[in-house]
């Protein structure tokens, strides 16, 4: 299933043939009117007056927009969390995605620390292959860091078609990596040609704030947002941008939830950093005021990390940034839990499992907030819901474009239809929908996945297990062209100097080697004693050849210059 499927003559299966007539085809660069013919799940012809075999099922689009199916870059179906599993599994989740016009999802593999990445990956593949109704691909989360992980990452990239890894700057003592580790991970990722993703929040601060807020006796879901102020998100975004810059690694920030975090990304892009930001359905469609709802179950349904910003202007702001290109990709971070599961944290907000719905609503919300309001046109809409993601993750033009040879994942979009989102009518299993009561304009009329009609006249015909795994190659052009150019530029050169032949001060290994202080400390650094390097190991002679040159080490060297006096420095230029 890997690679780009060309126009090969494969034995024909009649049911797989489909002709759409009179559609306005919308790609990210242009829109044009044409007919489109697909066969075997691949687009075979585009144009007018196509010559097609007889008996082909035909849909008349009547000039409506036909777009590449949406790509939801961020889902967490069936994700295990504290012995529970998120409420929607791959079947329910992908069904909901298809109902909303999304024909491909990218799910996150979350290996428990201590579990091999490969076995976790295989586990997810198994789940998804048996249940998924649409094509899918997998990101792998790095939840701990050691040498073995590096080899596994290499295998995943080379043999398993994974080209993106997520690191956590939060979930202290569980998933969180230190800056040093993040630096190493990013270096590895760059060498492998993959994309580094971050969950950006400062875990240290969050942990402290959680403790403080619980101490104050605040245990409800409002404590979740109080303990994760948006500065903490912006700080972590800023830090990961810095590390990515240093390592010359492309960065992808998942779940951009606040204005300040989005600003940091926008600014970094202006400075030339290769960084991408992913707002999600929730941050584009609603705000965090509901955390203060009197209804615990409702408030808990909004719990996700980073939290929805309580600032009610946030969705509008993020939509604007998405429209102007400062943010590029949209996901849903779909990972809902039902109320009984959430209630695990009824006395302590830090135990509420995190995640909101959004995979079904994503396309409609963006259409409603961006296209209807005139912030973007239909081509940009295709870019942010599908094409950009396909480019960044190296699935373009197989996905994310309507072109001959591309996969037949298509959406016939009706900009006129309106719909009120409700938990009663949605395809997810959870009791609460965070967009409950929101009226959206724009929705899919017909959804075609792998050349088959899966949504028509409001009826969903998803087939469990029909989704294929989409392997992704490393070094996506869209991302790595610039990175490669920079690697070439970034070579560092030292200054050629003669040997310094002045006096050198004596360094005695002082009584400084401190005894590990005898105190009940909470902390850091298993005191690696920075050893004073013996400089005389180097092949340096103090002033010409000396008798004892053959003796490799001297422990100390008397200072040559008189103390306090001006030493005579030879200028070696």
């Amino acid at each position, binding site marked *: 299933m890997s690679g780009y499927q060309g126009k090969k003559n494969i034995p024909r299966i009649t049911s797989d043939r489909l002709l759409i007539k009179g559609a306005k085809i919308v790609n990210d660069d242009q829109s044009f009117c044409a007919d489109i013919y697909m066969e075997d799940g691949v687009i075979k012809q585009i144009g007018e007056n196509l010559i097609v075999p007889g008996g082909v099922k035909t849909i008349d689009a009547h000039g409506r927009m036909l777009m590449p199916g949406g790509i939801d870059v961020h889902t967490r179906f069936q994700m295990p969390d504290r012995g529970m599993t998120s409420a929607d599994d791959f079947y329910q989740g992908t069904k909901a995605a298809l109902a909303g016009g999304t024909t491909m999802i990218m799910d996150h593999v979350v290996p428990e620390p201590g579990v091999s990445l490969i076995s976790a990956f295989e586990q997810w593949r198994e789940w998804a292959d048996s249940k998924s109704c649409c094509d899918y691909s997998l990101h792998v989360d790095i939840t701990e860091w050691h040498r073995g992980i590096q080899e596994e990452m290499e295998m995943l990239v080379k043999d398993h078609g994974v080209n993106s890894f997520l690191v956590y700057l939060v979930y202290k003592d569980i998933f969180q990596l230190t800056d040093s580790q993040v630096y190493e991970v990013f270096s590895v990722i760059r060498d492998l040609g993959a994309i580094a993703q971050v969950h950006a929040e400062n875990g240290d601060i969050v942990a402290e704030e959680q403790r403080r807020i619980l101490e104050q006796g605040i245990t409800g879901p409002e404590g979740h947002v109080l303990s994760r102020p948006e500065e903490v998100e912006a700080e972590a975004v800023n830090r990961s941008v*810095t590390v990515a810059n240093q390592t010359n690694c492309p960065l992808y920030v998942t779940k951009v939830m606040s204005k300040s975090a989005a600003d940091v990304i926008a600014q970094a892009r202006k400075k030339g950093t290769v960084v991408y930001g992913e707002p999600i359905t929730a941050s584009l469609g609603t705000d965090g005021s509901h955390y203060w709802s009197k209804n615990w179950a409702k408030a808990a349904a909004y719990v996700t990390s980073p939290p929805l910003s309580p600032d009610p202007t946030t969705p509008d702001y993020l939509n604007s940034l998405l429209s102007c290109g400062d943010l590029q990709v949209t996901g849903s971070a779909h990972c809902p839990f039902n109320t009984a599961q959430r209630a695990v944290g009824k006395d302590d907000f830090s135990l509420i499992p995190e995640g909101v719905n959004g995979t079904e609503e994503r396309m409609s919300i963006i259409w409603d907030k961006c296209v209807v309001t005139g912030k973007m046109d239909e081509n940009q809409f295709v870019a942010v819901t599908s094409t950009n993601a396909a480019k960044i993750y190296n699935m373009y033009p197989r996905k994310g474009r309507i072109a001959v040879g591309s996969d037949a994942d298509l959406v016939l979009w009706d900009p006129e239809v309106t719909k009120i989102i409700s938990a009663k009518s949605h395809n997810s299993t959870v009791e609460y929908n965070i967009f409950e009561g929101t009226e959206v304009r724009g929705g899919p009329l017909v959804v075609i996945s792998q050349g088959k009609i899966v949504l028509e006249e409001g009826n969903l015909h998803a087939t469990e297990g029909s989704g294929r795994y989409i392997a992704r190659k490393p070094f996506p052009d869209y991302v790595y062209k610039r990175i490669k150019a920079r690697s070439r530029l970034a070579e560092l050169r030292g200054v050629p100097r003669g040997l310094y032949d002045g006096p050198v001060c004596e360094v005695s290994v002082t009584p400084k080697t401190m005894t590990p202080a005898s105190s009940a400390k909470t902390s850091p650094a298993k005191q690696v004693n920075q050893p004073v390097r013996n400089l005389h190991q180097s092949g340096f002679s103090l002033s010409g050849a000396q008798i004892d040159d053959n003796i490799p080490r001297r422990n100390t060297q008397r200072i040559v210059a008189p103390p306090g006096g001006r030493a005579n420095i030879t200028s070696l230029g």
Partner: protein
Amino acid sequence: MSDRRMSQEEDCASLLSKLGSDSPRPRMKYGGMFCNVEGAFENKTLNFESFSPQSQRRGNTRNRTEVTGGPGPGPGPGPGPGPGPGGPSGQTMVFPSSFNKKQGDRLIIKGGKIVNDDQSFYADVYIEDGIIKQIGENLVVPAGVRTVDAYGQLVIPGGVDSNTSLQAPQRGLSPADDFYQGTRAALAGGTTTIIDHVLPEPGTSLLVAFEQWRDAADQRACCDYSLHVDITRWHEGLYEELESLVKDKGVNSFLFFMSYKDKYQSSDSQLYEAFSVLRDLGALAQVHAENGDIIDEEQKKLLFLGITGPEGHVLSHPEEVETEAVYRAITIAKQANCPLYVTKVMSKPAADVIAKARKKGMVVYGEPITASLATDGSHYWSKDWAQAAAYVMSPPINPDPSTPQYLTSLLACGDLQVTGSAQASFSTAQKAVGKDDFTQIPEGTNGIEERLSVVWDRAVSTGKMDENEFVAVTSTNAAKLFNIYPRKGRIAVGSDADIVIWNPKETKTVSAKTHNLTVEVNILEGMEFRGVASVVVSGGRVVLEDGKLNVTEGSGRFIPRKAFSDTVYKRIRARSKMAEAHGVPRGNYDGPVHDVISMTKSVPPTPTTRGPTCPKTITGPRNLHQSGFTLAGAQIDDHIPRRSAQKIVAPPGGRSNITSLS
């Protein structure tokens, strides 16, 4: 220290008791507390002993000087940063002859233009016992007073250098210039107060290190000094030491390192905890802002590439790394509601982050230093190793040549507030310890002597700031932040007689041949600066005149600083009151609760080479059934405190029936 406080309390009491009772007339003649002595322009004589608070205090200090003071030329302790001297007794004083003992300690500065941070005016200044006693024209002073002529020059408060390291050793090497040479150079440049950094080895007692520094400075310092204490390893056991330092030792500022991994570096959690403690103690948190993790990796990379010279230092400390840490420190300080002071602002983006945070209302202060205001980092690529190594400091001097100008502009517009020198000089032989490995080069540059001239030349001569702002950034702001105002940082009656007569017309060329330090390389070598200190008065004594230094080793006094500096903490206090978070009052959730089996999850400490995070406190799923929560009314087994598992009540996947509890 306690007796000093006692006397201050007495002062306060007597001051308050007299308030409003003995003011012969309204005092607001020259606009505020610390201005000219009222009536100074009228030639008259008043009975001196009748002014109670002032005279009582003088009596106190006088007595103490006589008991404790010996032959030392140092004047007795000042009145402390107590109540303003412009208080009830704003009158010109003439001293009874019985006080005419110490001739040498009396001084009148005539004809200069007095420059404070708020205004400039022409007046004479009369000094006695190291204290400014009178300001005005036609002062009545005892006979035989020494007169210093300041015609055509500016009379400014002596500089306060907020950042020096004259004692802190690096890799066992003591700085080339210690308290004696350092303060001598400071005085030569017009700085009369330094605040030095105490650097305890990680794991050793802060108090012990503090006493060590005090001993060294008391013996050697030639000008008044105060001390910051660096926290090289944070743990909760430090709280008592901090409290003792703040309450008994007169320290109100502590520095944290975000750099120097595995040595001094503090993690974010530690910073948060420490900042919360400092806020409660009323101290000011300082940070050395650089991301130590990234630097460590970059250093490894550069050494691996074979770059061992001083250029590796700046390559491994890019400005983003500084900026990132400043941003992070501000975020943490904001969360902990603690005032923050960023030492050594070396790059444009770091300064921008501070400026932006201030615009958002953060209580944060930035300190550019002599080096970052005067020069750039191009010298790291010098072919002369010794020259290049002399510039090594952290964060490094920025290679962008427009940096000094930019920082000066930000200093002028108030986005940055304080200037220090970060003086820490090491001789070339000491620097040469790192001749084969730039990471071993001891870090630090000179700057203590040139600071005022640099700011004058770069900011005042170019018209970016006026003389009042100059005083603010070189002296007053630091005095206010560190709570030694108005004792330091202002020319007012009752303030310490630390005064500089500044000649704005003279120029001076910096050179290692003529400077007052012992190091062989001056990083400002060959630069010409307009603005020179022509006379420096420290503690009431003239220490610089006609280009000659006349300092006394050990004459510097320790200046204790009280907690809760008004400039800083008024806003913090208001915010603490505002910031209380409130929960939402809800009924108990009485719906179904999912069964949590605490298996799989309790992660065994994985055998990995984890970096220096905190020890794993396993945050396993909390047993919720410990809480006094009953599932649906009273049940038979309610008295059993724990149940290890609870079957789920709602059918899996089905819609459970949630009661809305509003």
